[in-house]
């Protein structure tokens, strides 16, 4: 007689549990193995189909702010993964999406620009060549453009924030040595209430570097007159010295040039210029000192460095 007591049922359950453990162990082992197999990725394939922010805004059903957060989080991981060679290709696109989804989310503007500038630096010196045929300089340039695009958006979407214009001016001045652009940015920045005082000084300096000495002088004068403390006064004074020196030595050099044209020789001393009628009287530097003239080269310069007065 066949008997199938509860024990038989129990043994079937035991077998089943064994099978479960076995299959579980198997698939976990397989997963670990599969992870080690490297699969080819299409450059930029991970983000090729992200549509524009405007579209995404509707698609996210009112969770656009959350979507911005998540995409930003993803972007941070993405851009800090050095093994993705082509990650800078769509930098502006990615951050434009974040910005459009949440225009008031401040961090992405600054961080995006920072990544772009960092990237530009890396691209110029990286081994191997990340530009993939485009040329390093061109690629770097495009990244700077991306940085400015991001910061411009930040400023446009947040007119009360001075930091984006400041950052942009800073990049223009320091990395690109584009003093035109720097002047433009600092000039706009200093008009925003809450912008730090030194923005004005940077503006004035940019003017000087650009070559607009008149405006630079006037701005520095104003800064000097409205200086709230000794230190600022001193800085302004030094810069005024510098600008005045530039203006004066410029005029003097021009006169030297005219002297040379007329008399086919360099003047022996600056007083010659006055005697020749090319200059009314010799200008003095801000401290009342004379300018130094080198009769060998025809060079005119200030007696001291503005910072050593």
């Amino acid at each position, binding site marked *: *007689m*066949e*008997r*199938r*007591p509860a024990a038989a*049922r129990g043994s079937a359950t035991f077998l089943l549990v064994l099978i479960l453990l076995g299959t579980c162990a198997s698939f976990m082992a397989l997963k670990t193995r599969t992870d080690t197999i490297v699969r080819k990725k299409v450059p930029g394939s991970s983000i090729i189909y992200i549509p524009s922010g405007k579209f995404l805004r509707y698609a996210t059903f009112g969770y656009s702010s959350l979507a911005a957060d998540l995409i930003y989080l993803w972007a941070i991981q993405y851009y800090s993964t050095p093994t993705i060679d082509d990650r800078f290709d769509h930098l502006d696109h990615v951050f434009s999406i974040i910005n459009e989804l949440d225009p008031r989310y401040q961090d992405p503007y600054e961080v995006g620009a920072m990544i772009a500038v960092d990237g530009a630096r890396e691209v110029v010196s990286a081994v191997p060549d990340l530009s993939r045929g485009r040329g390093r300089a061109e690629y770097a340039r495009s990244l700077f453009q991306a940085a400015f695009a991001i910061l411009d958006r930040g400023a446009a979407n947040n007119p009360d924030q001075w930091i984006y214009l400041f950052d942009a001016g800073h990049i223009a001045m320091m990395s690109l040595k584009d003093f035109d652009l720097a002047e433009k940015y600092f000039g706009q920045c200093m008009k925003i209430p809450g912008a730090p005082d030194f923005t004005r000084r940077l503006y004035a300096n940019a003017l000087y570097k650009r070559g607009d000495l008149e405006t630079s002088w006037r701005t520095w004068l104003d800064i000097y007159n409205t200086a709230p403390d000794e230190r600022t006064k001193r800085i302004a004074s030094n810069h005024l010295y510098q600008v005045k020196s530039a203006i004066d030595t410029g005029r003097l050099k021009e006169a030297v040039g005219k002297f040379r044209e007329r008399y086919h020789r360099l003047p022996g001393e600056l007083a010659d210029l006055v005697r020749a009628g090319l200059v009314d009287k010799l200008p003095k530097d801000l401290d009342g000192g004379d300018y130094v003239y080198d009769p060998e080269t025809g060079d005119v310069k200030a007696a001291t460095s503005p910072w050593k007065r």
Partner: protein
Amino acid sequence: MADAIRIDSLKKSFRLGFIPKTREILKGISLSVREGEIFGYLGPNGAGKTTTIKCLLGLIFPDAGTIEVFGQSHLSARARQSLGFLPENPYFYDYLTAAEFLAFTADLFGLDRPERDERIARLLKLVGLERAASLRLRKFSRGMLQRVGLAQALINDPKLVILDEPLGGMDPLGRKEIRDIILRFKDEGKTVFFTSHILQDIEMICDHVAIVVGGRVVKQGPLQDLVSERVLFTEVTVLGVAPEAFRGLGEGVSARGDRVFLRILEETRVEEVLALVRERRGRVVSLSPRTETLEDIFVETVTGK
């Protein structure tokens, strides 16, 4: 004769509700069904009849107790092969035709083609559905579903047939057909175990009966033992004698038209009544002694306890 079913101290509790509250449904069922007999399992609603059957069939796992079918564990394949089951309010796959459904059931028993087809034809004829073989079950009436249910319960020619309320919802003609079929099972040597509310049917065909109340078998035994031959009262219908004549002789005198109905408690009085009728030149239309019926036992058992 061996036991077809043997249940010993079957216990089952359920934990129901969001905050689980344990309800003990079966509190220790013990019964045995001899091979070849028709066994009726009765009880009020909620007594645990269907739960017992589900334990028997392996749909529910008991907390304690043993169940044996033909001497083997009720969960064994051999046990399942030898039984057939018809549930209460059967519902089957309505997208299959009757023939397809029976063929599917036959496949579960591993019957091969020719045997399968032969059995299907025979069973459809038995339950009176041979003209509905290619009709989809969706179009079947309740009575027809009951019949096809019976057919699927018999597809493996089982030694034991378990029926849960097989006579419910059928018209009197249908009930008679099913009763006849069940009696035929007995002739074929099959064992039948069924539950029913309709006590007259049980009385008509059962050999053995068990009454379950509140999860326990409170009365069990052959039908004759349970239902005594004791006469409760005698009903007499008389023609041609005025009702007043019987005052003092019987209890419950009533008249309708020219007939008088009497209910006589004591047997001795019956003779007196008959003598009176003859004296008055009346006629006895009918005389029926009413013995204790199963219904009486049932009500007494259920309410008395």
